């Protein structure tokens, strides 16, 4: 019941936002949806819910649902100040808010889908809604970014659809199904060759959306050109939604007894993603793109974790949640920096701590959390994933990832500290920011620190290794 309300609420709130007369009203509608979303997600989390044949809350997607809801709640607070201070007229902001709410409802539906075909439909819907959000600023660069985003993702998703057709072709007999639980139940009877082709196509397709290398090309452009609340949503929630599709597809391979092939393929893409992130983080000149490459790195680690099978699932969920909160805080803070300094180039920003001490501290703290230094929960999840890799004899792969992570932390630290310290340049404006531009990040980062200490105190992480 709650689940049906949750799925229907989004479009209704979007409709309300569409007809709002002022930027304030639109932003408040977004806030109201965020509150309703959080409440309904909590109810779904504890009570579960099924819409027979199409939607179902299970152990894995409940966690992703909570992450989505928490991130959206924070972003909607930040978004209020962003909308009210925006230079665009209320008509454009009403459209923006309506599409943002549709984007969130499409992601909610992706997470809850228990049917692969339906999941595909909603993932493509997130692409279409996301396009409008990325193009929000209407600049030349935004146009370039949105073209790459919509075109590359649509091609990727087309591959995934071909994969879904092959998956149904792999089923014997006349009765075909795309229900995940039904496929699991008869996974042993699937045709191995068709299933392999289906797996590769689906991983490449959904991997495009999740930002896995080598099909990540749209990601840095879209994340850097989108307005900051949207960047936060893209990185912290959209990538997770596509990652859930990958987890589902991997689950089918596990049930079919083909996890060896699936693991090797996914591990390869995971390591490649971390590698690409490490290479580009060392040479990137734009701080929002830096954060985007860090998202690619984290998606790579999550993919590597997924490839370790069910036993690593708690670590994967922890990694996904930790990354989402930390990266949302990071992107929102980057929005503060962009507003204050007016440039996205790293070279144009120095002395944040002096100019805006709160933003500077949030910036450094978000970096500490995303770089998986204790007490960041990412420390424990990465430890668990790497530990499991060592335990299953993947010494080389684990060593490669560890070296690349060191490079990434070095690259990010040099940029983050260079921007935070020193004397502020003349381009920085003296605007006094509303608390709404600080509170969401502060709450996310505090939650992460507490979470980390709880994990440490409870010794929870030991269980997973």
């Amino acid at each position, binding site marked *: 019941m709650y689940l049906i309300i949750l799925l229907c609420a989004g479009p209704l709130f979007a409709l309300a936002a569409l007809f709002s007369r002022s930027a304030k009203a639109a932003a408040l509608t977004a806030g109201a949806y965020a509150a309703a979303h959080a409440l309904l997600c909590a109810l779904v989390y504890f009570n579960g819910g099924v819409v027979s*044949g*199409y939607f179902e809350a299970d152990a894995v997607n409940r966690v992703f649902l909570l992450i989505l809801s928490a991130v959206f709640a924070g972003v909607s607070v930040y978004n209020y100040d962003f909308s009210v201070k925006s230079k665009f007229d209320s008509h454009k902001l009403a459209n923006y808010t309506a599409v943002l709410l549709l984007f969130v409802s499409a992601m909610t539906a992706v997470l809850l889908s228990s*049917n692969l*075909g*339906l999941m*595909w*439909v*909603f993932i*493509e*819907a997130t*692409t*279409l809604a996301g*396009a409008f959000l990325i193009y929000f600023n209407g600049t*030349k*660069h935004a*146009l*370039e*970014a*949105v*073209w*790459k985003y*919509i*075109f590359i993702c*649509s*091609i990727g998703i*087309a591959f995934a*659809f*071909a994969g879904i*057709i092959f998956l*149904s*072709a792999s*089923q014997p007999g*006349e*009765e*075909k199904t*795309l229900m995940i639980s039904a496929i699991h139940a008869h996974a042993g009877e699937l045709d191995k060759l068709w299933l392999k082709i289906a797996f590769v196509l689906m991983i490449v397709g959904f991997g495009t959306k999740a930002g896995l290398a080598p099909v990540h090309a749209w990601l*840095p*452009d879209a994340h*850097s*050109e989108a307005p900051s609340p949207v960047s936060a949503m893209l990185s912290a929630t959209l990538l997770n939604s596509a990652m859930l599709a990958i987890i589902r597809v991997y689950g089918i391979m596990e049930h079919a007894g083909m996890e060896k092939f699936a693991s090797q393929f996914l591990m390869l893409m995971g390591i490649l993603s971390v590698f690409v992130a490490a290479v*580009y983080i060392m*040479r*990137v*000149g*734009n701080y929002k*793109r830096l954060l985007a490459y860090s998202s690619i790195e984290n998606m790579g680690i999550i993919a590597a974790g997924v490839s370790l099978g069910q036993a690593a699932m708690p670590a994967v969920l922890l990694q996904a949640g930790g990354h989402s909160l930390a990266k949302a805080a990071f992107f929102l803070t980057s929005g503060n920096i962009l507003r204050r300094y007016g440039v996205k180039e790293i070279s144009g920003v120095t002395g944040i701590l002096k100019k805006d001490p709160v933003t500077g501290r949030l910036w450094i703290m978000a970096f500490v959390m995303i770089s998986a230094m204790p007490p960041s929960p990412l420390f424990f999840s990465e430890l668990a994933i790497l530990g499991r890799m060592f335990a299953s004899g993947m010494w080389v792969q684990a060593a490669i990832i560890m070296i690349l992570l060191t490079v990434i932390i070095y690259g990010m630290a040099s940029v983050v500290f260079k921007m935070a310290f020193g004397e502020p340049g003349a381009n920085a404006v003296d605007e006094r920011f509303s608390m709404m531009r600080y509170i969401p990040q502060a709450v996310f980062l505090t939650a992460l620190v507490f979470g980390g200490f709880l994990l440490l105190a409870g010794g929870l992480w030991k269980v997973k290794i």
Partner: protein
Amino acid sequence: MTSFLAVIFGLAMIYASSSGRIEAYIRALAVQGIVLFAAVLLDLGRLTPLSALFLCVETLVFKAILIPWFLIYTVRRNGIMREDEPYISNFYSLVITTIIFVASLGVSFAAFGSEAHGIIRPVYFGVSIAAMLTGLFMIITRKKIITHVMGYVMMENGIFLLAFSFAGEMPFAVNIGVLMDLFIAIFLLGLFVSRINETFDEVEVEALADLKD
């Protein structure tokens, strides 16, 4: 009869990939839509009434009329005429597409020509793979972004035929959702083509290479 349809579909594909005139591509895509409609008509017997109706509408209304009409509208509005300097000349495109077509059909018949794989129709399967590859080939070798959209439509036609070459159906809700998504995607891409044309004064991918590291 299916072979006849496959040949027309393939010829339209080869024509599109080797011609320089944008409107010629679009006509080829419309021909493909009509061929897909004919393929659905041939198979009416094995379809439930609801999905038969749906597939007829999808192929005739969307693939043969609406999408080509919208592409023609976009092209005329933006004054795009020819693909002037593709990365590969039209002659070699013709050769490569023909090779893709023949090879796809050959592999398909070699793999499924025998009766052992009763569920797969080798003609459709081969042509669908060829259409997907040709769509990708067009995207890679052409410079105009409108041609990329057509490559994408060609891929989608291939995927439609792929689904059709297997027995079995998707749930109706999923079918509707897929069609809506694809249509909106093409619509959005068309809008962005116009926007890029206004902003950059040209509609080639090389204009879109400013964002990089």
